[in-house]
């Protein structure tokens, strides 16, 4: 190894360092490249894609009616028991007893957002909401009842 190689080694090493500095220097002076989103400030502009899996919700129409028949498909599909259907007996106008859902209990603290319940639901009664700010101080607040109080099943959903 001669002196020539020694010097060329030093020089090429030095050049590679300058190349890196040129790159960081470029970003130092070009603030338009910054892609940071200022999260709590941009809540209004924050548009999550409609498929984003935030939490399971049950949409109700304006008459407080949902589409859940209580078939328990979601409960069976759920890998970790986040969903639980509780039944009640309802009287139909004809005076017969009919089984209907009382509560659809949803354990958000257990849910892994795997989307299997939504896939399993035959009547599209539940869907994923785009909310994601789920943090609470009390764990019990994460146990949610998906159907609103007094809600009924929509006409024509079997």
């Amino acid at each position: 190894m001669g002196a020539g190689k020694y010097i060329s080694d030093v020089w090429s090493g030095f050049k590679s360092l300058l190349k890196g500095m040129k790159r960081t220097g470029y970003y130092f002076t070009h603030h338009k490249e910054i892609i940071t989103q200022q999260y709590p400030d941009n809540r209004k502009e924050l548009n999550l894609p409609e498929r984003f899996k935030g939490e399971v919700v049950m949409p109700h129409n304006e008459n407080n009616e949902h589409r859940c028949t209580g078939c328990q498909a979601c409960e069976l599909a759920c890998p970790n028991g986040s969903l639980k259907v509780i039944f009640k007996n309802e009287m139909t106008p004809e005076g017969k007893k009919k089984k209907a859902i009382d509560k659809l209990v949803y354990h958000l603290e257990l849910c892994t957002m795997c989307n299997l319940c939504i896939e399993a639901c035959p009547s599209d009664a539940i869907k994923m909401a785009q909310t994601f700010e789920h943090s609470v101080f009390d764990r019990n607040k994460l146990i949610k009842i998906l159907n609103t109080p007094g809600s009924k099943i929509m006409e024509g959903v079997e």
Partner: protein
Amino acid sequence: MWSFSDISNSIHEWLSGNFNPTWTLIIEMVLAGVAVIGLFAVLGLVLVIMERKVSAWMQIRLGPNRVGPKGIFQSLADTVKLIVKEGMTPAGADKFLFNLAPFIAMIVTMLLLAPIAFAGNFQLWDINIGVLYVSAISSLSVISVLMAGWASNNKYSLLGAMRSGAQIVSYELSAGLSVLAIVVLAGSLQVSDIVGSQADGWWIFKGHLPVWIAFVTFIIAVTAETNRAPFDMAEAESELTAGFHTEYSGMKFALFFLAEYVNVFIVCAIGATLFLGGPIPLHIGSWEGFNHAMDYIPSSVWFFGKTFFLIFLIMWFRWTFPRLRIDQLLNLEWKYLLPISMINLLLVTAMAILKWHL
């Protein structure tokens, strides 16, 4: 015109008019001490926020932007946090040395401020061996690192301290040799003389290639000496968690942190003084108008501008390069920097004898 030297002179005159010489000296000492501590605090705050902003922009981030406009008071908030934090002393540690180490780091850094010319004719202590004093004192900083590493009774700290010891001792050499290049050219160790010798042009312009080599060597060596990335072997986050200050928390950690930043400031100030003319304004040949305009900028602005430019350079290194390995670090010093700076010193000496630089 407003300048630091005028202020200090008028304070001196007013004090000597009102008190006897002994009291004047004591009061001036106290004032200088307060000024140094104030400078420390301000430098710490400014440099931390500067580092965070520089790193953020290089990393396509925004950086701190919550406390104060554009986040400029972030480091103040951090300081408050560090002050109220508990300063833990680990059970197995040597309590006395453990608590002493951060103060030694601070004291060494404070001592280093003495011979620095912050503006034209404004120095705490214009000692005639100024440059030697700086290199002598700065080599003491290794003691605090070793002390912290040893007293922590933590293997990571110990490894970090040992690395730091090897590193600082090695890089002192090439830092010293590159400083010597300027000393040879200026013919004096006194800081004011060195500054004076650059009145007709900074050494980096007058000294041709050898001074450039000395300058590059100096920057590399001081980066290593202050334990900054890519030579941050003593801290080496991904290897030794935090190196010698693994066990430190709260204000004791903050003192190390502060000492590191002020150390960076000081070595950059020395670099600016030796190579970039310190408080001397930029003059270009025969451009009379330009030179006059430059003269209107106060000398302190020149000094701080140059120093912060060098600090920015060192920060730029940190946020660009990966870290060296410990054996490569020592290889770089002993196989590359030291031979280069020795040959370079020879060249500079020849240049000084033959008066090529004029």
